[in-house]
């Protein structure tokens, strides 16, 4: 039972990662790409972490996984914000590269 749940969660997480990657490759500019990347990847990572946590044997491990997810989500959101801010400020005098 737990195995099926974990498999379902992990697969769902991978689908989100796939969507984020497709968005990163297909969207036209930095802002939409960031949007695809951070949102989809944070959700994907959350689902993946949940899937692994279901399989974890001890609650310490579950806490550790939760902490990892929280830190990764925080770091990636703030990094996204900084990249977007930089892009906004420098858009005028730097041409967008392909």
């Amino acid at each position: 039972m737990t195995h099926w749940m974990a498999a379902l969660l992990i697969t769902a997480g991978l689908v989100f990662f796939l969507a984020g990657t497709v968005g990163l490759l297909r969207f036209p500019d930095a802002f939409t790409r960031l949007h695809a990347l951070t949102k989809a990847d944070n959700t994907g990572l959350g689902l993946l972490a949940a899937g692994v946590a279901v399989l974890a044997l001890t609650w310490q491990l579950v806490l550790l996984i939760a902490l990892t997810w929280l830190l990764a989500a925080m770091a990636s959101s703030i990094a996204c914000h900084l990249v977007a801010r930089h892009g906004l400020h420098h858009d005028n005098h730097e041409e967008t590269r392909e």
Partner: protein
Amino acid sequence: MMVFDSLLALIIAALAWRCVTVRDLFQAIVTFIVLGLMLALSWTRLDAPDLALAEAGIGAGLLGVLLLSTWRVVRDAGPDQGEGPPPSPWVRTAAAVGSIALGTAFAVVLHTVEVDSDRAGGLALESLGEAGVEQPVTAVLLNFRSYDTLLELGVLLMALIGAVLLRSPLIHRPAAEDTGTESPLLPVLVTVFTPLVLLMGTFLVWAGAHSPGGAFQGGAVLAGAGVMLVLGGRLGGDAQVSLLLRALLILGVSVFTVIGLLLMPLEGAFMAYPEGLVYPLMVTIEFSLALSIGLTLLLLFTGTNGLRGAPA
């Protein structure tokens, strides 16, 4: 798992090819960082978690930061910096033929190599009980082959001294606009993450005695915390190097050497440790190594002689 390994190997080869051939310098650097992370992944598959940690932290993380900060200098200098004439098609063809031959020969040799079970590593694993630490790689680095590690630290220190000597009097500092201090979220990131990263670095050093980790991995993580403080504007480069900083930079080498020399009369050999004291000595050496390594790497990043706290 064969499918996964093959895919990973393919990704590694493709990333290396892209890193070498892509036109844009920035893309080459980013590809190099991703290549480092993929290598770390493959090394965990090959039972080398220590090296995966080191590659991800030092090879991809810190070296990536160093490469990117140098890229900024190259970019600011204009498009024609360092560009010689492109090599002629003949050179390209010759290089391609040569490297394909080299790669093929290497692959063939690697597939026919006979691995002998009579080896130094077996001896190291057998005498692990005398090493004072349970982690074989740490035991080899700090006990069985401690000369290597001492000299390696010397090389790291020499690299820093060389970089300091090369520094022009005009100190290059990251421009204020690029540090992003104006963002309200950045202080949050720095405040929340720095203690956690420091904790993780310390843990990695301590864990080196019995599980993957060690002075180099931990030192790299400590340096990462420093890089974050610098980028967040909490720590700045300084033209003056304080006495304390100098002392910390040579702490690793000196502690290593002093302990080795002090115990010589007792043990009769340089860097031989008495049996009961091995564990505390190792931990002392490892923490001082990690501090020196972290600071050296941080100073290589800031490109300045010293450090000072910036007013928040």
